[in-house]
């Protein structure tokens, strides 16, 4: 467990001091994303040459499967629907790299793909994702959905707050469906999410910053 903590800190510090990246955003923009929950920790740093594409590095340490994936991830905004007070997005993501099963043989060619759809207003947020991974022949598919509401509507530059519920489904898991209430705090270019997965009794902490 102590090694896990050290790894999280090393990922946090080493990556953030060397590469500032971002998800699909504005042209020439960088994004840095860090996700942590009881199942895995990941960092994704990416560059957006256009408002529809981004490419960058992705590292995931899967605690449950005891596997580390390192690779390149490409994100594509396939379609955006801009309404007067709404926005909806359809994203496709693909990653290719290598995975090292701990205590096993060497690195193996691995990858993942993900489709994501979201719809939001300034008050409501919904999202659905499906992700398939093949990390060193360890294959899985999982779904997740989110519903969120903003308790107040802030102006540009204010601290924005979202209350959300995330439901995940891992069909092959002994506990296939999990629920995570979380709070999303959003100010300027930074976003922080803190939550707690009830079934696993694990914390969730995600952080995104754009440059």
């Amino acid at each position: 467990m102590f090694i896990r903590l050290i790894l999280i800190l090393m990922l946090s510090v080493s990556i953030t001091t060397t590469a500032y990246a971002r998800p699909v955003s504005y042209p020439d923009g960088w994004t840095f994303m860090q996700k942590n929950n009881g199942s895995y920790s990941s960092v994704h740093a990416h560059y957006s040459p256009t408002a529809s594409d981004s490419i960058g590095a992705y590292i995931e340490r899967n605690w449950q499967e005891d596997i580390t994936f390192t690779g390149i991830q490409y994100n594509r905004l396939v379609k955006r629907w801009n309404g007067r007070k709404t926005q909806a997005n359809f994203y496709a993501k693909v990653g290719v790299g290598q995975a090292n099963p701990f205590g096993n043989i060497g690195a193996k060619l691995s990858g993942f793909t993900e489709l994501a759809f979201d719809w939001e207003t300034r008050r409501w947020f919904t999202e659905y994702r499906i992700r398939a991974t093949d990390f060193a022949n360890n294959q899985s598919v999982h779904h997740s959905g989110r519903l969120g509401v903003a308790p107040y509507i802030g102006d540009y530059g204010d601290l924005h707050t979202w209350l959300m519920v995330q439901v995940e489904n891992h069909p092959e898991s002994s506990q296939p469906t999990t629920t995570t209430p979380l709070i999303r705090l959003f100010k300027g270019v930074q976003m922080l999410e803190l939550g707690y997965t009830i079934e696993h009794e694990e914390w969730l902490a995600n952080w995104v910053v754009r440059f």
Partner: protein
Amino acid sequence: MKSLKIIGICASIIIFSQSVYAQKTEMNHDDHDHSEMEHNQMNHDDHDHPEMDKESITDVSVATDGPVIVASVNGLVCDFCAQALKKVFQKEEAVKALKVDLDAGEVRIFLEEGQMLSDAIVAKLIRKSGYSLVDTKREGGA
């Protein structure tokens, strides 16, 4: 151990975010004196304020008069949207400042005196940012 993990994550997040903002606010003023001067009266020929210029572009106080284009935009639902518009428009020489009104779904584009920006270019820049132009209104001779 779970609590240790979450404390470690939060600590690293806070430490990093502090260093980012520390870097952004640093400017070198060693070679000139700003005492007894308003900032808008200073000679800026001998030094750069790149980060300051980027930050001030959304500050309407720097450009309350002069030509303005009011663009009605679809898809403005969050601060990230406003950031995207800011980053794209600030590269235009004609643009002095930008103010985004998320409630109204409007972007006020303040132009430099004597400069112009056609509707076609405004539409292109908004599309490049990831959003859709509905229409424009022009004020102050824009």
